[in-house]
């Protein structure tokens, strides 16, 4: 485990995220999002969380971003839209910055906890598996219902217009 390396990757991720959050071009924003997610994945590997890192790269950076990329097709990239977006940001950034500062300050200046006892050993993928399919089985089932709800919603919202009746 290399916590320092992980921290560097995390900082990379933060930087990429900041960039992603401030681009007016949608494609660039998605690209920086992808970069951020990948940096996080690297940080996970550095923390010996291989299962999490693999999932991060496969599912998150892979599947989720892929969906975003599909959607990019529909984005209105006209000058008007980009201009509007930019104006909106220029209006709102002081407020956003204020709120961000308010949130960040307490986190940065948080007190440092004690080092853990040396007996701590990194958990393996197997540990994660026994946890998820053992005591947490019900959580996994619940997560499936989470996806089910999203599935029904997406099917309905994304479907054709047939709003002749209310639900």
């Amino acid at each position, binding site marked *: 485990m290399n916590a320092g390396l992980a921290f560097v990757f995390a900082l990379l991720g933060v930087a990429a995220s900041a960039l992603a959050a401030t681009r007016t071009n949608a494609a660039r924003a998605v690209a920086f999002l992808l970069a951020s997610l990948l940096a996080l994945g690297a940080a996970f590997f550095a923390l010996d969380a291989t299962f999490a890192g693999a999932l991060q790269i496969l599912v998150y950076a892979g599947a989720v971003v892929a969906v975003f990329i599909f959607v990019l097709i529909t984005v209105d990239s006209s000058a008007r839209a980009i201009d509007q977006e930019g104006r909106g940001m220029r209006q709102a950034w002081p407020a956003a910055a204020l709120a961000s500062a308010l949130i960040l300050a307490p986190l940065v200046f948080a007190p440092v*906890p004690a080092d853990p006892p040396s007996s701590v050993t990194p958990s393996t993928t197997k540990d994660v598996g026994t946890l998820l399919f053992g005591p947490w089985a*019900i*959580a996994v089932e*619940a997560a499936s*219902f*989470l996806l089910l709800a999203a599935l*029904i919603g997406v099917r309905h919202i994304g479907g054709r217009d047939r709003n002749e*009746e209310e*639900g």
Partner: protein
Amino acid sequence: MSAASIAPLVAMGLAAVAAMLLAPSAHAAAARAVAALGLAVATGFVVLRFGAPERLATELLADDPLARFGIALTGLSALAALAITRIGASAREVPALIAIAALGGALVCGARHSGALFLGLEVMGLSLVALFAFPLTQRALEAAYKYFILGAAGAAALLFGVAILYAAAGGLAFTDWRSSADGLFALGAALLLAGLAFKFALAPFHMWGPDVFEGASPSAVVIAGVTAKVAVAVALVRLAQETGGASLQAGLAGLGAASILVGNLFALRQTSLARMLGYSSIAHSGYVAAILGAGGTEAGAAALFYVASYAPALTAALIILTLEGGDVRLENVRGLFRRRPLEGAAFALGVISLAGLPPAVGFIGKLYLFSALIEAEAWRLLAVAAVGSGLGVYYYARFFGAPFLPCKEAPSTPQAAPRRHAGLAITCLFLVAVLGVYPMPLLEAAVFATR
């Protein structure tokens, strides 16, 4: 893990899956019937087992009277939502979503572990987004989008809070968070509170409330305004019980006071029934938060009683929204009693209950609220609650008087309401009136659930 403990969840889940599978079939009503059956079985089961001994369902879920109390209310409110759902060709999946939302609520009620808590909340939240969006009108989509975005931000805050708590305490069960009191812990608790406050519509996390009440379909509003509220209240009670509560109290008290003032003030001159109820629901959340924030031995029972008394009253008021169509204003309520005596009476009594006037159950709720605040010697909160109640009477009075007043324009012949509505109205009327006069069963249940 015992079968009996998770049986209600299983029943709800099976109902959801069955309803979803039945949705495309020819008989759309069958989906509702199946969902209703599942919910009814789950509810009946927990009610029967209300006094059964406490046990752990899993590491994540408790099976105690508190959970059973919450699940029963969740199931009942979901049944109410089902009753006022209109099922047409486009909305066949709604029963399934309602059942999933109820499942989420049940999870939250039983959660004694942050994993279950967060999953329950999100199952509920995502199915709510889908429910809000279901009419696919512009307003419905707007409501859904607002709830979705704000909800996602809230969920992120909640998760981040849980993560920090986990970092600080090394565990994810509520009981693991009991001892710690260092700075990191407080940060996590604050973020956790922010996430919960969003679901509970506490000011300043309340903004979605009135918009959703106005834009979404009434059945979805029942889930958002009743089911979700009951579940979060139960979760808050359990958090207070299992963590000792101190870390959340100050925040809850502050948010509660703010919500009481904001909700009542914003509702003061509101003429749209839906928005008035939206703002008033913020105020009611505020009362519950204030009780829990004040602490004291009675706090949990009082909070539970309060949400339980709030549930049928709000449902009764919401029936009108389904009957009269979306945008009901004060003047549309006039003459309601003449047009629809049963629903009109239920509406009036419901709003009287919300106002906290006798002989409705809301009166007892307010009594219990004030007594809990007095017992906790929370004088400032008491003052805020008193001011809020005074303001509340003012705007509720406009609404509960209106059904009895003559209509300005010639009343259109009302559409025949399905019998389900009448049944629901009678049930709400019965609950509000009878519990208003004889509140002991509910009072004792609430006390038993928090013992």
